[in-house]
């Protein structure tokens, strides 16, 4: 069953000089209890996409078109009051810069209980405290954190506070935006496992935004590869990472050194992310693609769907399929 569905989503930032098309013609289905990893280079529009779901983009400088359907409702059509009921209660978000995601001059417990009161205005103090401590335990934090200020925590602890905050209502959808990238491997693993456990317990649907493919590989069941605002490939992790169909996915995987494997030559992807404010023809990745063909520069590739929800937007993949 599809829980969250994005259709023809286009998001543009209007700055003074130019319009940056951060997300373009984006279609993605996320099913109930999926764990969807969205990967892509920095600046490819991952955070923008996630923010659009909760309507957090500054309204006056962004244009959004398309649909974001959650549980059958188009979030983009809701007014702010209706949206309030969904925000955090149904969909919660762990921000990329979690170090700054709480007010520096208020105690953590205070802020968490305040958030809890947004949807549970009648909860009494003790209840709230219990709830918050329960969450702390869940993310492996001591309960003394309740009375600390954000700056008194280490980056890892703060990260966990953010996760605890996002879980405060046990939402249906949890979006984690690079939430563990800054942590050391041990802590990172710890937190991710915690979250995976919760996911099972609470029937969470999880969206992981990261540019570290290995995280997706070991914690998600599906993956979506983004590049310059486009979705290039999506499908089950086991399919996509094992035998990537899109050249970009392939190169992305090639540029990771393997820990135990042969010390083969690492290959980077030459070139850089295109200017998102520029109009372009053809495949967005064509400039950097080693396998680019003539038509890649003129025709935009269609999204081709293989079996098992595996979709690829590449002329090569299309031809392969049709062959």
């Amino acid at each position: 069953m599809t829980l969250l569905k994005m259709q023809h989503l286009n998001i543009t930032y209007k700055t003074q000089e130019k319009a940056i098309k951060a997300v373009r013609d984006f279609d993605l289905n996320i099913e109930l209890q999926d764990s969807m990893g969205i990967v892509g280079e920095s600046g490819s529009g991952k955070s923008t996409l996630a923010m659009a779901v909760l309507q957090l983009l500054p309204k006056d400088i962004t244009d959004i078109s398309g649909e974001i359907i959650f549980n059958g409702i188009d979030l983009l059509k809701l007014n702010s009051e209706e949206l309030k009921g969904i925000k955090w209660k149904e969909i919660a978000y762990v921000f990329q810069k979690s170090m700054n995601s709480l007010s520096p001059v208020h105690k953590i417990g205070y802020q968490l209980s305040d958030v809890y009161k947004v949807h549970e205005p009648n909860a009494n103090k003790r209840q709230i405290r219990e709830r918050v401590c329960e969450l702390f335990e869940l993310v492996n934090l001591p309960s003394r954190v309740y009375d600390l200020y954000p700056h008194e925590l280490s980056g890892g602890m703060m990260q966990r506070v953010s996760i605890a905050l996002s879980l405060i209502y046990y939402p249906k959808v949890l979006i984690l935006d690079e939430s563990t990238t800054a942590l050391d491997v041990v802590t990172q693993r710890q937190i991710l496992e915690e979250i995976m456990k919760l996911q099972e317990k609470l029937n969470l649907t999880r969206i992981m935004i990261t540019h570290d493919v290995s995280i997706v590989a070991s914690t998600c069941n599906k993956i979506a590869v983004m590049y310059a605002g486009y979705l290039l490939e999506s499908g089950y992790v086991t399919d996509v990472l094992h035998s990537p169909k899109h050249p970009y996915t392939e190169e992305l995987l090639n540029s990771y050194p393997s820990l135990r494997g042969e010390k083969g030559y690492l290959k980077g992807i030459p070139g850089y992310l295109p200017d998102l404010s520029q109009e372009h023809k053809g495949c967005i990745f064509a400039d950097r693609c080693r396998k680019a063909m003539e038509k890649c520069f003129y025709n935009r590739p269609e999204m081709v769907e293989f079996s098992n929800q595996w979709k690829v937007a590449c002329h090569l993949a299309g031809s392969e399929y049709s062959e």
Partner: protein
Amino acid sequence: MSSLLEIKDLTKYYVKKKAKNISRNKKKRQIIKAVDGVSFSLESGKVMGIIGESGCGKSTLGRLLIALEEPTSGIVKFQGKSISSRIKEDRLKFRRDCQMIFQNPFDTFDPRNNIKRILTSALKIHNIGSSKEERLDICIKYMENAGVIPAKDYLNRYPHELSGGQLQRISIIRSMLLNPKLIIADEPVSMLDVSVRADIINLLLEITEKQKAGLIFISHDIATTSYISDSIAVMYLGRIVEIGRTYDIINNSKHPYTKVLISNCMSIDPFENSKVIKIKGEPVTPMDAGEGCYFAPRCYKVSEKCKESYPPMIKVGEGHYASCFYLFDGESYLFTQ
């Protein structure tokens, strides 16, 4: 033959006057043992990887090696002579021989200088090249060698107009300009996108080989480090807990912490299903490490002995040392877990 770099019992303590909470301002000062008795040596043309979690003192060690900071105690010998006397003798010569590539490429250059000025000023300080044109030519040559092509396109740009990868490359080029004998690369790729990491790593490797310089590669990314280095030192709370050749450390690690680190590494292969050693607890801060082994509070092998004294470095193989009381008997522990 004496090695290029030799350090012995290097320590660096920071004194921090800290008041966690205004009302609880009892602690007068706290000592942060950022680097706490580190010894190792490095030979020309070799790459030494230093891994360890965030905050374990890797960058501090790097800064000590290049005399950006005064060590609290211990000696750093560069080409057989201590660096403090080298600096006294000839600061410029030393600065020329040792170069550091900083953790954050976006902040390595004065945002108000363009690339041309950034590169030529390094030459000018060291009186390389006689005229402006000559210096510029040298820079362009190096840039083209390093794959920044066409070099002229970049010369008049400012750092903010370049991407992280490009900046990191400029950073490497600048240190190359001076033909250093020792390069310290402090997490040169952690800030970069996966797609450009590989190029940077390859560039670094190539340079060490060509110039026969020693490279110290600091990172907490184990996979990358293992890819690049000849040997690896594992740090925990300011101390080296295990050191040895790369293969030994990755595949035949002895110290529990190393094992934990390596088993926690994630792989991009969704089918690989390695055993993960789980440990509890927060990383201890370098302030309140007690008497015994620093890793003891989180160690899965911990015994009473560990809490009493710090275990000595023991040789466990060819060039492979580790400091733990239970290096040999716990081999099977991993698998029974």
